[in-house]
């Protein structure tokens, strides 16, 4: 099997994640779209590690996971505090800086 197929899968998942970020209004789902994009890049890293015969791609993927975990913690805390002040998890409602 040609390993490039995994790269195509990674591209598809990344694109779907990007569309999720652009289309959805719920902040949590937008965040999940970001997570999907990170996962897709991880898949690309792992595949490239295998193509090139070097584990460094896997190490980078591991670091991506670590940073993503930290990002999820902070991001969800931000979403929570925004929800607490405006009773809404919609990204459209956090628009105070617009005016």
């Amino acid at each position: 099997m040609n390993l490039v197929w995994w790269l195509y899968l990674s591209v598809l998942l990344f694109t779907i994640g990007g569309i999720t970020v652009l289309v959805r209004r719920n902040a949590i789902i937008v965040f999940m779209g970001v997570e999907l994009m990170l996962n897709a890049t991880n898949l690309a890293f792992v595949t490239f590690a295998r193509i090139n015969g070097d584990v460094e791609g896997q190490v980078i993927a591991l670091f991506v996971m670590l940073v993503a975990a930290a990002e999820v913690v902070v991001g969800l805390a931000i979403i929570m505090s925004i929800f607490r002040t405006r009773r809404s998890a919609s990204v459209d409602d956090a628009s105070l800086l617009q005016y």
Partner: protein
Amino acid sequence: MTAAATALVAATTETGQASLGGNGEEVLFWVIAPLAVIAALGLVFARKAVHAALCMAWVMISLGIVYFAQQAPFLGAVQVFVYTGAVMMLFLFVLMLVGVDSSDSLVETIKGQRWFALVFGVGLAALVIAVIRGVTYPKAVGLKDVDTGGNITRLAGLIFGKYVWAFEVTSALLVTAALGAMILAHRERLTPKPTQRELSIRRIREGAIKAPLPAPGVFARHNAVDTPALLPDGSPSELSVSRVLVARGQRRDLRSVADDVAVIEAELTDPLGDEGPRTARAGSPGAVPADTTQRPDAGAAPEGTPTGKGAGT
């Protein structure tokens, strides 16, 4: 663990051909990839946030399986543990806190945004796929020669050797993130927390009922739960009927209970019961079994004079 990992690596590895992996991997790809893409599309199209989260968990688990097949058993395990186990559960917790029903509004704030997003997505995918297609890759090497000591040993050698500084910085990042999340989620108390003593004093001051609430049907003509209790002075007590029944509209009407009070009083003054309000009630239409809750006569009817009922109206 290492032995198992090596076995797995050995199972999924073939010699360094241009196309690694056997037919098994191809089958895995054509099973996993469509499922993962469909689940990812669920993220875009699911109306409920919980469904989107479950779709996301599915994508993550399938990616973990892919990592196992891609000679990255450690990453596969971490993917399942950290992403599906921790991150997605965190998402679900926040979903429960924020409100499960906080579904998306379908109003487009920017006109035509969805179409632009779709065009952008298709364009991005086409671009990157074209780039990937255009590149000539070296022969896929595979990790068989690298992972001689096992995948985890090799990864550990890199993480604690070459990338040890990045690893240390990551720990600082994680501590900072945890601290930041605590500060963001922290809510300052504006008033001191009332003690139990203060709470009890306030409860007495407000004059609410301290004893248990009256049971329904006490001293009333019926002992069903939908009948308000009659207080010693004959007035029905609102508190005695369950709030659920009140919300459902299944409570016996207070007015009908008041009628019962009149009947009871008449019976007390006229124990023989040949005259009085009963004759007046006998003139009313006969009891219909369906609406017993509305018509208090239904319960009292058999006690009335049957002949008067039949000849009524």
